[in-house]
């Protein structure tokens, strides 16, 4: 897998080596690392940094695409006493998503430098990296990197001789997908069950332990010091469409070369699948794809020439989400595909609200009946009703259940004949759901 292409700017993966060996502090500094931090500390004010971030049009890479500068602008910047927190969401668990692992394992210092400047911008004095339990290697690398930074004066009291101080901790989680939801993550970091919280109040005002808190995804934070060092115009110029920067794109499923690549934001879907992922594996045809993880709507072959950016994919009726596509091929059963996802979401519901706790297992049961040849014609209406009621934002406590409905509602739209073949033919026409 080659991540770096000659002549193209790949800020996020410039230290990613072919063998995925981690970049240590010496190698990181030798390649310009902590130059962004040095160029900003004592020279740019937090307000200067925030303005650069706003001008850059960086949008949250965890899936929602919310403008990062705007998110940060709601943090109170008065001198009132008490902590402010920055949290890195490294709880990568969206099905089909494998981009943050690469950034964490290959270049931990990039994340830490981004976090120091992000924390400085909002004047946070404590930062946490909330990392999923299974990323053992990444958590260890981050702990070592933080220790190395303390020795160098990049972290701790009076960073680089300024009056700004920051402590940073790694918190390894104990499982559960819902922890990736930012308010559930905050509950979990407080030692509680990871139930999401009602908004408002928003975390920027009342987050961790009731204090102002910003939660951002790994990839988002990795961009920050590059933007502050090289400027908003540079970042804007990286994107091919109206959306700025580069993006970690990925493809999994039955393609020749599954993988993850940093490419200009707005790279066409076809280019990602056919050139980078090498096209479909021999003997398989493309039927559809989830653009960015398990909670995004299917798109199909008619959407291959769309640009992979937040607005374009949104207008096509889906979401770019995490930017890591999952491919549905012609030998895999769309009903089985959606059933796998629905069982996942049913298992991962936090159980707090009824539509999610009871509705998702119901949907999974109906899909299991159809897949297993026990389906009834009226099941199609039941699924459509579930999509309407559970899928509507506002009917549930958080976005998990509406997200779970996205693959189902789009499968009913694009692969309806497959559902009907199951109902008419007494079950799944594919061999073992196509996964044999």
């Amino acid at each position, binding site marked *: 897998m080659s991540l770096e292409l000659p002549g193209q700017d790949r800020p996020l993966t410039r230290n990613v080596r072919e063998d995925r060996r981690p970049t240590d502090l010496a190698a990181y500094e030798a390649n310009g690392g902590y130059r962004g931090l040095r160029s900003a500390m004592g020279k740019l004010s937090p307000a200067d940094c925030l303005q650069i971030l706003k001008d850059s049009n960086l949008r949250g890479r965890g899936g929602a695409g919310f403008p990062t500068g705007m998110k940060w602008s709601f943090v109170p910047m008065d001198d009132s006493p008490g902590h402010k927190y920055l949290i890195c969401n490294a709880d*990568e*668990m*969206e*099905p*089909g*998503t*494998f981009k*943050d*692992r690469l950034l964490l394992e290959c270049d931990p210092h990039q994340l830490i430098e981004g976090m120091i400047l992000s924390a400085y911008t909002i004047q946070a004095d*404590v930062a946490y990296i909330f990392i*999923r*339990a*299974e*990323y*053992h*290697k990444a958590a260890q690398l981050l702990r070592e990197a933080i220790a190395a930074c303390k020795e160098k004066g990049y972290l701790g009291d009076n960073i680089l001789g300024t009056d700004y101080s920051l*402590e940073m*901790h790694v*918190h*390894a*989680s*104990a*499982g*559960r*997908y819902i922890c990736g939801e930012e308010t559930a993550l905050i509950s*979990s970091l*407080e*030692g*509680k*069950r*990871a139930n999401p919280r009602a908004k408002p109040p928003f975390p920027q005002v009342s987050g961790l*332990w009731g204090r102002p808190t910003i939660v951002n995804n790994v990839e988002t934070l990795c961009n920050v010091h590059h933007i502050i060092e090289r400027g908003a115009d540079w970042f804007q110029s990286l994107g091919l469409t109206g959306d700025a920067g580069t993006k970690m794109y*990925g*493809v*999994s*499923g*039955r393609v020749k070369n*599954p*993988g*993850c690549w940093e490419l200009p934001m707005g790279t066409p879907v076809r280019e990602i699948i056919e050139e980078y992922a090498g096209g479909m594996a021999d003997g398989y045809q493309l039927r559809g794809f*989830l653009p960015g993880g*398990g909670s995004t709507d299917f798109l199909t072959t008619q959407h291959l020439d769309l640009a992979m950016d937040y607005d374009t994919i949104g207008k096509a009726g889906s979401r770019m989400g995490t930017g*890591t596509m*999952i*491919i549905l*091929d012609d030998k*895999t059963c769309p009903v*089985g*595909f959606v059933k*796998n*996802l629905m069982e*996942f979401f049913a298992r*991962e519901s*936090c159980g707090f609200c009824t539509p999610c706790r009871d509705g998702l297992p119901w949907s999974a049961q109906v899909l299991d009946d159809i897949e297993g040849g026990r389906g009834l014609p009226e099941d199609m209406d039941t699924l459509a009703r579930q999509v309407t009621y559970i899928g509507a934002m506002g009917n549930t406590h958080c976005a998990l259940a509406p997200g779970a409905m996205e693959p189902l509602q789009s499968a009913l739209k694009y692969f309806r004949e497959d559902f009907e073949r199951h109902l008419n033919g007494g079950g799944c026409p594919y061999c*073992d*759901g*196509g*996964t*044999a």
Partner: protein
Amino acid sequence: MSERETASLIPVLSAQELAAIDAEIAHVPYRAAVAIDALKIVQAHRGWVSDESLQAIARHLEMSAEELDGVATFYNLIYRRPVGEQVILLCNSISCWIKGCDRLQAKISSQLGIALGETTPDNRYTLLPVTCLGACDKAPVMLVGEELHEDLTEQALNRLFGEGET
């Protein structure tokens, strides 16, 4: 049973466990905030969290055992039942499903004679499903202990767990 007798049933956490838990307490505003860290620390030493361990942790964190159990049972990687020396976490999310994780699960179950959630009689392995492990380009994947096994095949499973009863 007197209060003293009840207290004697609660084992004391080891000095090592207490030191690790107290190091976490040092940077949070109240003791119960380290509930998850404390559960993980004790589990790292003892393999799982027994009722007795749970009570000892709760007492140390100045919270009720019931509240702590509510936290412990929420998280799938806190084990409230004994597990084998190594836990096999087999990814069954979408990219691994496409690449045949159901077949691999059946294979492991046949090799080790255990279903999901069970432990081998010799106490070597426990088999559990897990959420997408973030290595979808190498699907299907699983964790055995802390080691990630990528691009899994039946042959690889034979090398790891033996032929089993096929």
